[in-house]
């Protein structure tokens, strides 16, 4: 039951996101468009590239989808609406998200094309940039909750949401989450204008449909994670807990889309430079501040 509800949430979220994305790019609001797009992908040929590493080529989209769903599995949408509230939930999320990289390397290597290959390896560089900015803000939230249980992290924000308690962490995590989901302005691995789709470039038909779905679900999962870690999760007045989770998650997801809509793609060198020279010191500062706050304010 819980599993079904979480999966349904992910799918509905992905659908809404696709509608909004199409609205932003084409200026038309068409609720059925994502469904039609999915259906038309099913009807199109699935072409295999010449001499692919077929194992990787086939596995990559599925792995990405699995990763996104597994990440969502440890995030509580309501006090009892969580597939597995692991004692190491916050760490588990990190662990799962690390496999996005694995999936992209497979997708880059598998189809045997230069654009895809460059895209896949680019993401490795991107990971070097963003990964610390995912881990460190989460660490700071876990410090406040004195637990790695995601539900405990939500409950620790009962008085004050983490977005207020540690705004620096929120900003860093939000940016890193966009980079992790490789959406514009961090869409270096796909980069339509530079690599003609990069890791996506050789996928068609059903495989492309899975890949696109996985990318949307990934955004939802990361938005849900942002909600859990920084926006007080299910907490809120009047509405039932799950509704608050859903509203906050979608709001974060849409704001991620909007950031990409209004910004050009970042330079890879700038991304690495800024993350290491600015982002990581700030993240450490955030941890320090939170530590002091915990000690000073009882």
């Amino acid at each position, binding site marked *: 039951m819980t599993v079904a509800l979480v999966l349904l949430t992910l799918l509905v979220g992905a659908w809404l996101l696709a509608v909004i994305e199409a609205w932003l790019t084409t200026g038309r609001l068409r609720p059925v468009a994502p469904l039609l797009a999915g259906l038309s992908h099913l009807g199109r040929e699935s072409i295999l590239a010449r001499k692919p*590493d077929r*194992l*990787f080529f086939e596995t990559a989209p599925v792995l990405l989808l699995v990763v996104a769903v597994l990440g969502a599995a440890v995030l509580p949408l309501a006090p009892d609406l969580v597939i597995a509230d*692991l*004692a*190491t939930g916050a*760490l*588990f999320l*990190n*662990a799962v998200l*690390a*496999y996005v*990289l*694995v999936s992209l*390397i*497979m997708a880059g*290597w598998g189809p045997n094309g230069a654009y895809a290959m460059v895209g896949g*390896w680019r993401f*490795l*560089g991107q*990971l*070097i940039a963003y*990964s*610390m900015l995912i*881990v*460190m803000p989460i*660490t700071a939230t*876990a*410090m406040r909750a004195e*637990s*790695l*249980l995601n539900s405990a992290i939500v409950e620790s924000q009962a008085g004050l949401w983490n977005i207020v308690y540690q705004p620096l962490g929120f900003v860093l995590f939000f940016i890193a989450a966009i980079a992790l989901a490789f959406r514009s302005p961090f869409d270096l691995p796909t980069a339509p204008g530079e690599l003609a789709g990069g890791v996506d470039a050789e996928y068609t038909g059903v495989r492309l449909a899975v890949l696109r779905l996985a990318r949307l679900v990934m955004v939802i999962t990361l938005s849900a994670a942002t909600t859990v870690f920084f926006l007080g999760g299910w907490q809120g007045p009047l509405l039932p807990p799950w509704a608050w989770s859903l509203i906050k998650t979608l709001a974060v997801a849409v704001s991620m889309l909007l950031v990409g809509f209004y910004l050009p793609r970042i330079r890879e060198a700038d991304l*690495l430079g800024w993350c290491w020279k600015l982002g990581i010191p700030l993240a450490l500062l955030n*941890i320090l501040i939170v530590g002091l706050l915990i000690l000073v304010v009882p």
Partner: protein
Amino acid sequence: MVVQAFFVGVFGLAAIGFGVAVFRTASMVRSALALLFSQAAVGCMFLAMQAEFLGVLQIMMMATEMSIMAIFMVMFMMDPGGLGGMDMSHQKRFSIGAGAIAAATAISVALFSDWGPIVAEAPDAAMQTRELGFEMLGRSMLVFETAAITILTAMIAATAVAIPVRQPGVDTGKLDKGNGDKEQEASK
């Protein structure tokens, strides 16, 4: 207990299988990813043995580590795609012998030692994480700090070795960073 034995066995087999695959595939990326899955299976064994924190940590660390391994494989191998079908090994017989002897010794020790009484129940995961934290920042503080300093030193040393002489600004060794900090942070 049967369930535990089952999962330990399955993941153990997976770890061994992928481990063997590392040296049996000609494609270097496959080789690196096989190692990744082998290590991830080891992580799953930890989970099956109720060491949740360690298991998740292992699964997390290895993803990045082995992906970096993959890019280095591609860089440094003559035939990363494995199309040439060339043999990249030497002293095969000797190695097989050494491996077999090492494994046999370890196995016989495992089988013929008296391991003493077995503890049936492990502490629950939340408790473990908490206790590990106290251990790490209490009694084992020195060990923990030493590990942290070691990793920092290694990062700096590796970067220093890797960057070209008199050619600042180009840092290929940068790829090595990342693993250490993550561990320190995650283990807090």
